């Protein structure tokens, strides 16, 4: 479902990109895509813009990480099975639905 959504988004970007080239300023994004990118950006402060951390960062790059893996790790942080310094505290601030949304966003970003 997500892939389909991304494909739709890509198609939208392509169309909008061509439109922009023609001097039209129509938006490339949907409202929902904007919400997802906005909430996912809360992770970017430490994990890098669109999930791409700086070179040599001790904080991991989330871009391109399989969504299932992100969801699993966040669950492990929440229930304490994965030891952490801050992620056990931050993970508890996000609902399972938000985690799934964020995970799908980062999985779709280029590494």
């Amino acid at each position: 479902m997500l892939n389909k959504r991304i494909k739709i988004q890509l198609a939208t970007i392509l169309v909008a990109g061509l439109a922009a080239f023609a001097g039209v300023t129509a938006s490339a994004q949907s409202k929902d895509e904007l919400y997802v990118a906005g909430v996912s950006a809360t992770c970017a402060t430490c994990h890098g813009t669109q999930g791409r951390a700086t070179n040599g960062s001790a904080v991991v790059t989330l871009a391109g990480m399989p969504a299932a893996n992100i969801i699993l790790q966040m669950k492990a942080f929440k229930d304490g099975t994965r030891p952490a310094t801050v992620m056990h505290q931050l993970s508890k601030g996000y609902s399972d639905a938000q985690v799934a949304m964020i995970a799908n966003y980062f999985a779709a970003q280029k590494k």
Partner: protein
Amino acid sequence: MTTTNNLQRRQILQSAAALSLLGLAGCATTSMPSKAKVVIVGGGFGGATAAKYIRLLSQYKIDVVLIEPNASFISCPVSNMVLGGHKSMADITSSYEHLSKKHGVTMVKDMVSKIDAAKKTVTLASGGSIAYDKLVVSPGIDLMMGSIEGLAAANASGQIVQAWKAGAETATLRKQLEAMPDGGTYAITIPVAPYRCPPGPYERASQIASYFKVAKPKSKILILDGNPDVTSKGPLFKKVWANQYKGMIEYRGDHKVTAVDAKTGTIKFEIQEDAKATVINALPNMRAGLIAVNSGLNNMANGRWCGVNYLTFESTAAKDVHVLGDSIQIAPGMPKSGHMANAQAKVAAAAIVAQLNGWEVNPNPMLTNTCYSMVDAKNCIHVASVHEYVAAEKTFKTVAGSGGVSSIDLKPEVTMLEGAYAESWAQNIWADTLA
């Protein structure tokens, strides 16, 4: 996903081409547009992040002008390590060039002298004006030098600096500490909360203690706090001071400063007896940045802070003017920090992109905050929080059960690991804000 990247790159090129046609492209100050969709006042964590994310979230379609007087970005986070001698000024300085070159933000190196919210224009100190559809005001703090007698004169003569806006004063304070004879006293005075960076003064005391411990072991540190107790990570800081800096740091709560005398090294208080110090680092009360005050955006807390609609960070005093960062009236549990300003900027950026597209803004925005405090060259403690918008109360609140501080065990392997994460946090937030 290569396709996405190519598309993004193509869009940047298109955007750059479009900007060139409009005369908006190029380096700072070479060309000043007379009109922009979004004008941003202040290139700190709030303003620079807003500039970049409005560009990103609009797929590079909304043109953004960022007005900032400084030639480069100097980070307050990590600046205490310059005072401790563990980092250089170069380490905490970043360029603004990626915002223009990579993201097509038009940089204008200037100060805004006036905001006309009715006409929707800003006037620059050097003359000229820029019209906007949306204005973002992120001017940081104004230090209320008048709140401590003698402070303005002592600052003007260079005898007492604050170094609470990282820059030249950071280097000056480091020089004062280097020049101080062994056996001297460094005193930091802290205003009543809220002020910029709640744990900052205590981190600074720890950093300077780490320097004195090696270079000037007979020296003392005096923390004179206007608040009744340490305002952030109290038990952690106190344990660090007892463990690592025994006998070096003296903490005195409820000490509200009324006056300083740099010549005699005297600090006066509302109630208690005078204190003496060789190097005085007096932090006065703080309020919203001057341009926000002069524009009447400071409609909260007796004119100290700017009220905002937390869903969009739009001012409650002026339409289409969004206020970010340390200048705003904080929601419960919301610190005045660089991380928070970066997080607020993303909520505001998404809201501005939505509004300019005629869309409803996200009804459920989120904020995070992680404040790392380095207690020496390598060891670190933190406080972290997650904030959700609560529509019923029209404010942000910390999510129940989330957030917290470092373990009070202070195991070296953990505080060292936190130190490594803090270093990465700095690199990543600087890149997320500027690159």
